[in-house]
């Protein structure tokens, strides 16, 4: 808050700092947003080439997506894998977060470190390790292993946001519930869960997006017949840069934006991520 000044004079120092930081932030925001806008505008081109600004506007490449069966199949696979991975992350991650938040033992902190480590370690190295492991067990990559691999790399998101929500939870509420005769399950369902629900929700959203987007783990754990969307799109980009890929990208950007708005509305996404 600006302090009351005896007489007004331009505060060049304050002005220069604010101007510099505002300018840097403005450049950064353009830098952050421009790619998404440009890919959407490019995908609306009427011509065959990926140029910006587009030559004429049309939705023909979006219409062409309706016939891209391989891409649709890959999208479905990715959605199914992300759904199961997210469900498992929430079901395994929420109780684990409860346990870690309640315990002040060293073991709990070590477990927390273990569960967070997939965020810091190279996911590609983990994908490769998991593949080696599966082969040594005499098994082959398959969709259940793919989902399990995604759980490992996505569960940190659920844990982070749920733990953050739990630190805001007043323990006296739990005591009150218990002293009023509610059992543990009742207390969890009626007191704890409603209070941490937004944290779990935001974490699950992040886990879903991370799974839907995962390349390094899927590269090793998907079997030959299974193709996930990001890898399919990647191959499209590496082989023939066509405008259909831009249209698919446009669809993904718009859906991501919609999901983010929903997550913001119902789980307070931006405040949960802090």
């Amino acid at each position, binding site marked *: 808050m600006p302090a009351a000044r005896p007489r007004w004079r331009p505060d060049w120092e304050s002005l220069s700092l604010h101007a510099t930081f505002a300018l840097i*932030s403005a450049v950064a925001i353009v830098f952050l947003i421009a*790619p*998404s806008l440009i890919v959407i505008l490019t995908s609306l081109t009427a011509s065959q080439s990926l140029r910006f600004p587009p030559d004429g506007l049309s939705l023909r490449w979006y219409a062409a997506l309706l016939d891209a069966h391989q891409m649709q199949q890959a999208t479905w696979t990715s959605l199914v894998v992300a759904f199961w991975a997210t469900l498992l992350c929430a079901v395994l991650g929420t109780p684990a977060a*409860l346990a870690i938040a309640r315990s002040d033992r060293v073991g709990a902190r070590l477990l927390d470190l273990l569960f967070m480590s997939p965020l810091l370690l190279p996911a590609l*190295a983990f994908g490769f*390790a*998991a593949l080696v492991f599966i082969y040594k067990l005499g098994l082959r990559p398959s969709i259940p292993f793919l989902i399990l691999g995604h759980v*490992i790399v996505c569960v940190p998101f659920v844990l982070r946001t749920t733990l953050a929500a739990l630190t805001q939870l007043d323990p006296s509420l739990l005591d009150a519930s218990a002293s009023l005769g509610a059992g543990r399950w009742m207390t969890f369902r009626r007191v704890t869960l409603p209070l941490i629900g937004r944290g779990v929700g935001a974490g699950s959203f992040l886990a879903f997006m991370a799974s839907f987007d995962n390349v390094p783990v899927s590269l090793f754990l998907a079997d030959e017949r299974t193709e996930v969307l990001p890898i399919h*799109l990647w191959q499209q*980009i590496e082989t023939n840069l066509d405008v259909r890929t831009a249209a698919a990208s446009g669809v993904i950007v718009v859906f991501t934006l919609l999901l983010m708005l929903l997550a913001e509305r119902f789980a307070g996404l931006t405040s949960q991520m802090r």
Partner: protein
Amino acid sequence: MQEDGLRLVLPLAAVFVGFFVAPLFMLLALSLSREADMHALTLAHYVKFFTDPFNYSILWATLLLGVKATVLCLLFGYPIAWIASRVHARWQTVLLFLVILPIMTSVVVRTFSWIVILGRQGVLNRIAMGLGLTSEPLRLLFTETGVVMVLAQVQMPLMVLPILTVMSKLDPNLADASRVLGAGEWRTLWRVTLPLSLPGVIAGCILTYSASVTAFVTQTLIGGARLVYMPLHIYQQAIGANNWPFAAAISIIFMLAVLCVVAVLNMLMRVTPDHASR
């Protein structure tokens, strides 16, 4: 209550032991064996890595790439966090939303849009040539400059969010006190706000750094086939050359290298609060 508490962690712990810890130990064992059948014990793959300049130059280039991307993120991310911590709550949400958007968008899509921007006929080159800044199209795609730019865009939220978290908890009286005592805004930033927000800065650096060095898709699509970083090197050795023990050895080396950098940064974080409170 305590005993009951730790029981809840068991299912996830079991999954991690079975499908995370066990595979990593398997990887370690594989890296120490001569052939993929895992019999004879040997350090040959590690010796090979560190005696071949091609191999360790890739490791070095990767670790350096992370530093460049992290520094760029910090230069842009710190001002964003500083402004976000000072604006009205509604604007803060809008600002954060814009910062988070890129990391939420599929990595392949994001990288693809950069190809449209950075290419020879791309947006950036047409702007540069239109303004007469250059007569020849600049080479941005398949260069390290391009990779660093894209990594910085993608990882920005990992830098901004931790800094903002720490900054919002700072007592505004400290900055006011500094000003009342005659320090200008720049001096207050440099001597008060920045030191106090260092834990957030370091946390942001840890996240940005580890995400940048391991960003396989961005490195490969923007960097192209000639710029090889560690993740692509591991992939090529594992799948392309089918040399599993060597791929395992370089995976272990890479993981340890990333962990070392993270551990050093983490130690810095432990030192700073003491330093700041004095």
